[in-house]
């Protein structure tokens, strides 16, 4: 147990320190999400009422695409420096590596969302009608749903030929129900028309099911020769 926590802590601390110094992931994600917001705004040219209807979808599509940028970088550095090989021969538990990477990505995407949210509110003149604290819950659950599978699938796609292209191809189909739940919950809160409770529960179930699946199968993926 203690090795689990120690490996988790040191990996997470290393990733956060590297990101803090280089700001690679967060810069590219931020700029990418900004581009998506601007391009959507031009392509749909929504009025205030329309934008409340579609903002839930826009926000999450922007975050989904931006998250892929960070997720793709998760394992690239480790593979380049043969860290994964070293990890395989060490007795360190595989799941603590996975959890550290997932929590790291969760923090990166979470920071991105916190930075982007004011921009969305500004560009689309949003004023949520439902309770705002629920948005935070949906954000946390939805981000976890994206990054837990994303981190796992990135470990798979890193082993294929066209790495960067492969991740969205395998991640998006499985993520569709989570994306639907995030979008519907966010729209429900923004418009105040319906209750987001069902979608929040669905997200929680999705998170629980796929976190369990990832933890059960990550060691298999790490050791795939």
């Amino acid at each position, binding site marked *: 147990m203690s090795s689990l926590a120690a490996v988790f802590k040191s990996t997470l601390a290393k990733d956060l320190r590297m990101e803090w110094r280089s700001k690679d992931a967060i810069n590219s994600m931020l700029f990418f999400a900004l581009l998506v917001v601007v391009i959507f705004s031009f392509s749909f040219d929504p009025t205030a009422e329309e934008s409340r209807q579609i903002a839930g979808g826009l926000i999450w599509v922007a975050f989904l695409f931006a998250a892929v940028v960070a997720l793709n970088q998760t394992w690239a550095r480790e593979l380049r420096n043969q860290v994964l090989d070293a990890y395989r021969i060490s007795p360190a538990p595989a799941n603590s590596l996975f959890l550290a990477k997932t929590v790291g990505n969760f923090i990166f995407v979470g920071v991105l969302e916190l930075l982007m949210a004011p921009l969305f509110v500004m560009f689309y003149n949003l004023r949520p009608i439902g309770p705002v604290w629920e948005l935070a819950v949906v954000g946390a659950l939805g981000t976890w749903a994206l990054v837990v599978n994303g981190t796992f699938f990135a470990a798979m796609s890193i082993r294929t030929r066209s790495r960067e292209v492969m991740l969205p191809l395998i991640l998006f189909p499985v993520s569709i129900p989570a994306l639907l739940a995030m979008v519907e919950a966010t729209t429900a809160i923004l418009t105040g028309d319906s209750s987001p409770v069902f979608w929040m529960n*669905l997200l929680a179930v999705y998170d629980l099911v796929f976190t369990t699946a990832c933890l059960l199968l990550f060691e298999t993926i790490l050791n795939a020769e």
Partner: protein
Amino acid sequence: MRTKLTIFGLIAFALLSYGLYQAMIVAPTEATMGNVQRIFYYHVPSAWTAFLMFFANFLASAWYLIKRGPRADAFALASAEVGVVFCTVVLITGPLWARPVWGIWWTWDARLTTTLILWLIYVSYLILRRYSSGGQTPVLAATLAIFGFIDVPIVYLSIRYFRTQHPQPVIAGGQGSGIDPLMLKALLINWLAFLVFGAIVLWVRYKLERARQQVEEAHALREEQQYEEKPLINARAIR
């Protein structure tokens, strides 16, 4: 193998012909939809066969992760490919029927969307297999298959809550369900025919994949032996 294939091929041909006769001539014309309803005898059996193939793929993938046998991997690949083909038939015949009956080609209904997402998941499975190389392909593919399979109930649940338009199940679907016995007969014969046909394609694809695996193993073994400068033993010694 060739004789068996011929026999099963003839059985499938006979069943498909008989099924066609039953569906097109014997089964009565549906009261409100007319002849366009007859696509049902191909749409539904394809769907059932596709779902069965995907379930077989899940079992083979789980089996592969536990036992690591190349046979399970070959079976998983074959069932996913055949499943995608039948699922494509479902997705093409569905809109052909929906256009005259509903007046629209497509709607984001629970079963339509679930089938489409299922199709997307297994196409992504085949793409992953295509783009990964060497001994890790089966492990990666089997893992993705597990993820895809546990995703299906969540997809269905979410879209069911979202909206639903697809006709309710007509067989064992509760009150008011049930179809003419001749229609049921045509449906079941066609399902049997599609199952036999699907099983033949699955079998041939499985044999083909096994042959490819064996060739690959033989090549790997030979390279290893040349490297070690040892005489070549019989390559058939490995499974």
